[in-house]
């Protein structure tokens, strides 16, 4: 009996020894990319079993519309974080863009509003980039400070009250559906594709990775560090502006309090999505799953009547787990 079991142990041991290292190597290299989609799939399965409304086209549209703005902002945040930076001002940017674009739209029409939105986003990003690259202020402090400045500006311009008079045609966009897909989702998917292409197929995209991976080596390879950082923050501001357009359409007004939870949520989505806070690694595809994780979690918890306060606690905890996991993987990968 003992002999038989030991022989069996040997057999299974040999099999796992063959599969073990390969699986471990795979996990070590791609762990960040593989784990999250599995978690998201598991979450979908779980909520489908618990709630009978969850697994339905209308609810998926809800999730999509709710996720779209966060997705745009997070894709922008990705650029900043891959340079080993951070953009905490995204929420305030969304608010300022919302106010200014609502003003512009009320007075000059929808396209003027959209142009104003995108220009504002780029301008904020440029300011962030200049403070970080030229004045050498750490991104954390720099964007924490600009967050306060931008937020103050938004409240001042709007006197703290919503800017009304946004054209109905614009507000309707948030609920328009093309080929069964809500317009905000289509916008977010466009931002995703463009961001992925920039990171993969443009020089500035690769330089963003190089700077995040090793700034000194990048500098000694002749890369213009300042210009690349500037670009990363402008892209972040631009994406935040796109996110703001979606949110502004949804609330049909310019809101000075829009996006206050976005700094936390976008950083969570980016880090959950496998982008290293130390810079140099990660992809927007991963971030898209991070966004799905945050949005599906909050949708599912809503359906289960979990209060939004409790949801805040859950997201905070998820962020800690994700960073701890990242640290563990980094340490082992060393």
């Amino acid at each position, binding site marked *: 009996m003992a002999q038989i079991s030991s022989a069996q142990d040997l057999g299974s041991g040999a099999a796992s020894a063959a599969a073990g*290292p*390969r699986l*471990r*190597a795979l996990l*070590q290299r791609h762990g960040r990319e593989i784990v999250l989609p599995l978690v998201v799939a598991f979450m979908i399965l779980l909520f489908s079993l618990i709630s009978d409304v969850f697994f339905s086209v209308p609810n998926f549209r809800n999730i999509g519309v709710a996720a779209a703005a966060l997705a745009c902002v997070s894709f922008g945040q990705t650029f900043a974080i891959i340079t080993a930076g951070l953009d905490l001002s995204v929420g305030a940017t969304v608010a300022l863009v919302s106010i200014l674009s609502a003003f512009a739209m009320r007075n000059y029409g929808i396209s003027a509003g959209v142009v104003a939105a995108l220009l504002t986003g780029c301008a904020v990003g440029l300011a962030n980039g200049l403070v970080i690259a030229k004045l050498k202020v750490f991104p954390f402090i720099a964007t924490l400070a600009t967050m306060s400045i931008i937020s103050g500006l938004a409240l001042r311009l709007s006197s703290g009250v919503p800017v009304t008079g946004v054209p109905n045609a614009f507000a309707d966009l948030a609920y328009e559906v093309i080929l069964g897909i809500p317009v905000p989702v289509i916008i977010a998917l466009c931002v995703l594709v463009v961001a992925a292409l920039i990171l*993969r*197929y*443009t*020089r*500035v*995209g*690769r330089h963003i*990775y*190089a700077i*995040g*991976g*090793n700034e*000194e*080596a*990048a*500098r*000694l*390879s*002749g*890369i*213009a560090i300042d210009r690349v950082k500037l670009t990363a923050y402008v892209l972040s501001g631009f994406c935040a502006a796109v996110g703001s357009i979606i949110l502004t359409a949804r609330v049909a007004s310019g809101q000075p309090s829009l996006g206050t939870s976005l700094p936390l949520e976008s950083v969570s989505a980016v880090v959950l999505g496998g982008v290293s806070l130390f810079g*140099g*690694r990660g992809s927007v595809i991963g971030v898209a799953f991070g966004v799905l994780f945050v949005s599906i979690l909050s949708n599912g918890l809503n359906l289960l009547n979990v209060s939004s306060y409790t949801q805040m606690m859950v997201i905070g905890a998820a962020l800690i787990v994700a960073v701890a996991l990242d640290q563990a993987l980094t340490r082992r*990968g060393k």
Partner: protein
Amino acid sequence: MVAARGIGKDYPAVRALSDVSLDLRRGEVHALVGENGAGKSTLIRILSGDVAPDQGTLAINGTDVAFASPSDARRQGIVAIFQELMIVPDLGVAENVLLGAEPGLGGVLYSRRQAERTAAAIFERLGIGKGIDPTQPAGRLSTAQKQIVEIARALVLRAPVIIMDEATAALSEREASGLLRIIRQLRSEGVSILFVSHRLDEVRGIADRITVLRGGRHIATLDASSVADTGELISLMVGRSISELFPPRNRDIGDIVLSVRGLRRRGAFDDIDFDVRAGEVLGFAGLVGAGRTEAMRAVFGAEPPDSGRISKRGEVLSISAPRDAIAAGIAYLPEDRKDDGLVLSMSGTENVALASMDRYGPPGLVAWREVRRATRAVASRLQFRGQLQSPARDASGGNQQKLVIGKWVLSGADVLIFDEPTRGIDIGSKAEVYRLIHELAAGGAAIVLVSSELPELMNVCHRIIVMSNGRIRDELTEAEFSEQRILAAAFAGHMATTGAAETARWA
């Protein structure tokens, strides 16, 4: 003292060690040698408690032990000193020496005076006397002095076993011989030392016994006295005999390519004049901190000089950033590959292409197919043996060095400044780096080689400039090469200043 039996360790996709045994006797210096990837680092990480072995046992004084962590190993008397020194630069020397074992009342209060006395006593015992001031911030110490601080720390713990990983790699010959003297002193006090080094002459000089690893296996343990010459060790390490570590020099020297005049930066270097010709390898000798690296980084624009003129083929260049130097065809291969040369998280391909992306495809975009084709061509020319598509982190030291060289070959640079290109890489890779240097020179490139290894300079260069304390002290042509003359010049500037004399006393 310490016995390791049948140690095995698997990493994902690679077997780092299999069935390796090693025993360390009381009061012996035991050298561990092998090429990169031979398993030396894994073995010492196991011995120092950093990783746990998959097979085999460790025993101290005949009792089996298992270490939970490096601090566990320290408590049991094994202290490892790694190349990356564990020094807190902002704390004082004495505090660093006593880090984690601070003297004072009841383990709560800290007595600075007592700490400084203890540190001074240990330095005295090591024969350094007042060479290191226990009250100064540790960040101001030289690499050699920092190592002394780490050794002192081991002595505070009364560790009977000290593991030293490439302790002399970052030191000039003079500093290294000072360290070796201290090691002999420790041995006479009964401390056992496991000494890992790439410098084989040094190993033969200091070790009582030598263990050779190759490909994760134990090849031999020899009495140092029975080893006839370095060649014997080399052939054991590489499994074949390397008749020629240094290939013949390129004999086709052309016109002056790079010309530097009056280069100066306050507090770093002054009055630096030199020319390099096409096909020539110009060496820079000197102690660590002599200003060689600083001067070369100034030529490259990494830290621009206060004044001076740099010209290439007669044309004066204005270099204020590395970009300008790269555009002029000047390349710099930094001393520290991992910190300054490579983006470890990026693929080999991208590291090689990093300085030349502009040359492929439409402006602003990355033409991956062309980039891959070009980098593959460079990699095969350099005989890069890693995976180009995997992160540079995964490549061995020698292959990483080839990625850095490849970056500049691809960029088309014809002035290449190598700063300590063979530090920390194995002999096989060294020979290849020398071959590449000569190949580049034969192709018409002008080469500057900054090195702390005299044999390397004397066997690779056509001409050697010796710097000391920020100035050029001597220049030797191939016929004049002599170890004494170089060392004398290397110390010339240091003897003049006070305090440095004491550094020299222990060195």
